[in-house]
């Protein structure tokens, strides 16, 4: 990967990280490791979140009230912190998803090559 590639990758990740997390939490509540694993698996290793980028992001989203984290205890297991989407988060997700789709379509149009 060239320098420019690496930078674009970083910027893209930065711009889409919130959307990714919110999307993954849409279906059900998940804990941090599960999220990082899911991202890694589903992107086939293209996008990875280490603890130093994932958790600050989770805390930031939580602070904004878009997601809510709670400690959940199950019999015979250690307690784990699960994050779920709040109503506000759901609204934000809808909005971001729309913006993203528009954005990607625009980029595709701009970068997909010109038609005669």
């Amino acid at each position, binding site marked *: 990967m060239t320098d420019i590639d690496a930078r674009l990758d970083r910027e893209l990740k930065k711009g889409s990280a919130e959307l990714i997390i919110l999307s993954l939490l849409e279906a059900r509540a998940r804990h941090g490791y599960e999220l990082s694993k899911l991202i890694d698996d589903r992107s086939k290793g293209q996008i990875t979140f280490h603890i130093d980028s994932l958790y*600050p992001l989770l805390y930031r989203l939580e602070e904004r009230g878009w997601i809510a984290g709670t400690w959940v205890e199950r019999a015979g297991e250690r307690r784990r*912190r699960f994050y779920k989407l709040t109503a506000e988060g759901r609204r934000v997700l809808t909005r971001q998803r729309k913006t993203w789709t528009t954005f990607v379509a625009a980029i595709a149009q701009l970068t997909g090559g010109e038609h005669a």
Partner: protein
Amino acid sequence: MPDWSPDLRPHLNSLRLTPEREADILEELSQHLDERWRALLASGESEADAERTVRSEARSATRLHGALAPLRQSRAAHAQLEWPGSQGPSEERLIVRIARRCAAELTWAWRGVRSRGWRAALVVALIGLALAGNVLVFAVADSVVFRPVTYPNAHELVEIQRVRQPGARADGFMSANLLDTWRQQTDLFASVHAYLTKTVFLVADGRSELVTTADVTPGLIEMLGARPGWGRSLTAADTSETGTIPALISARLARERYGRPEGALNHILETTAQALLVVGVMPDQFKFPSGTHAIWRVMDPRGPLTRNFAGVRSIARTVPGLTTDVLTERMAQRSGAVGQAAGAGEKYSAIPGLIPMADAGPPAAKVRTMFLTLVGGALFLLLTACANVANLEVAGAMHRARKFAVRLALGASPATLGRVVLLEGALLTTAGVAAGAGLAWLAVGVVTSYVPVGFTRFSVNPIDLDTRALLYMATIAMATWCVVSLPTVLYASSAHLLALLKSDDRSAAQSRRGAFVRRTLTVLEVAIAVILVVGGLLYTRSYLALLHVDKGFDSTNLAEIAFAIPVEYHDQPAEFSQFADEVVSRVRAVPGVLAAVQGSAPPSTGNSPFSGVGMEIDGRRLDRTFTVGDTPVDPAYFHVIGLTLRQGRWLEPGDVPTDVIVTESFARQFWPDGQAVGRTFRRLVGGNDLPSAPTGVGTAEGGKLGIVITKPVVPPSVVVGVVSEFRSTRPALSTDSPDALYYYTPSQPTPPAPPSQAPAVARAASTGGSWRFLNVTVRLDSPERAARVLEAARSVDRRLRVTMESVDAMYAEMFGDVLLATRITTGFSVVAMLVALVGIYGVMAYLVMSRRREIGVRMALGARPGDILRLVIASSARLVLVGIAIGTAVALGLARWTASQFFGVSAMAPGSYVMVALVVAAAALVATWHPARQAARVDPVRTLRSE
């Protein structure tokens, strides 16, 4: 399972998380690493390899700290603070929620204060210094000049005075009948009371102690609006008490004698005359008729306590709403009828006069101008300090506006931010006020211990920390805060977030108007500092010059011993004479005493100069009055003092009391032809036509109040000699009263008779209130002898109060007002200087910060650190030089106007100004040094990269 916390914890350090929060994060991240470790094991790695990999990942998570840092403040706030509009847990009670919100906002505010760093410290220092300066000046001015009387509705209190003819001196004394008749004028006066000032000698352990006392009619203290803090007040029934006299004493006296105020109640205080029964204790703040009075005895205007006095003094409270003009007119109209009804033979006109404390006394009048100037200066100082605070706040405003904008975007309401900003202001102001109050408390303590007694004796309002002044100043500081800070919140809430985030500090710093305002303020501060430092220097030099003024005689090791002798002691003439001789001979016997002689040393304290004395010269009465002092002296007196004879002869043993020696100024005043010897004069007491002589018996106010007058007309005095001049008053200050004229009479073997003319057997019936002085002037070979000499004098009669004071100290006290002015202006100029330096520092530090990029460019283009240092110092020097120029010009203008306040130093002398300019410039350089060094250390590469 490995423990990951040692690898994670370093990333969380210094984030200042609460312990619970930190534990939460640690647990969550550890679990993440556990899962990762397990996944690696499952993929076939060995335990050791998996652990190494995960640990390395954990350690390399260096962005964790940076990514969590911006969250830490709002996170804590979020955890506890519910933004307006959000729903809190329903079961939580409102009061708890409000308390939590307050606590959260306070925490926010505290963090805001902390994030200011050195600026917060400067703000606190500025507010503290300015407040301390103001409170100090107000405390002294309020007590000495503005508001000497603090009784409720003091404007209703008057003294009923009498004038025999228009323009003549008012007489405050009246008979009991007259008092009663005025009391009946109920349409004018709500109540009329009487008092006399006296001196009582308390006796304890065989020693007598002089205590200034007032004899008051029952109800007078209540009329003033006061009451005892402990015990009861004086009642009408107390006046018929025999044996002991019921009295109130001051809390201070009670503490001195009995440890605590209430401990004095019902105790008997022995005096050289009738004993006193303490029925009540007055609180510390009560003063009547002046601050020195510590005992108030009950008095019947017709009773024995008024014996020997030409009546009583009155104090009355007018009916509410009566104007002074109406009162004056009605009193004049009724004077005749009231006098007739009271059976007074003399014709007079009654006028309402000021009560004794309404005027702060002559010493204070001298410094009135100085205080008014200082109060003006103090207010100006407060304004500049507030401007400095504003300056510092504006400097960081853009940065804060961005922070506010982010918080607003996160859901905080403008009201919340406004409250937080106000809280920040409250925190800073409170710290400033606390620092200021502490400083002022220290300063007031220092000043009051140095204020000459003459200033405060007449003031009923003590010099203390005035809470009103403190509150007033704090309000001004807080208002400044609101004016400066709240607009930032409004700006942040109205501006577009993105635009704000894009803007940088320079746009605020380099706004032309902002820079101009900041520079103007700095120039003004420097100018004020120059003016005050010049004032302080001129006063200091005046005081030093006064201390070294030519006294007209050699004051080296010259001292005066003064005995205060109640008339009940040594009351037989022969006994007194023998006592005086014994004192002189015992003092002379002390090794190291070069000479000792009966008579008071100049400036005369034995028989204080009387003002308003009418004079009859060579049989002809003069129209105006004079300040005249006389001292009975031993013929050897002049040699001990070191005065030289200019005309005639010295006094000789066997001279009669009418043979006198006058000073040169006395001779010049009355016999301008230079032929004083052989001429005659007579003193007319009070400027009226009663040629008589004060008996030497005085009262508390140096004989001015309640002086006992003996009627026999004295024969005229004959001048036998004229001696060289000595300086008895402060020279060359226009506000000063005219010099007193002195003459000396030969001390006679028999002293003046006690006023009562009472035989020794009647001593027990004496009511106290009168005393005599015995003054002995001594010249020592060294000041160390003083203690031995005093002990020798005391050994003659241990019952008596003896004091000893060096003549130099007496002169120094005479210049007390100049010393006070010196101390206050000097102290004040130091404060002004500090404020100016803080201002210079703030402006320069900010200048350097805002020009960092420019400095970086200059350095990148080849400028050396030395060049940058010079650049910053030159910017500062321009401001300082303009400030010095303006300050010097204004100081010169003021000096022309206040030249009369200074002595022995020209207010226009260039030396003082050059010196001040150099000192201020040097101090300014020191204040600029740190910012200049910072500028010189700018790393061009880093600065430009960060841009």
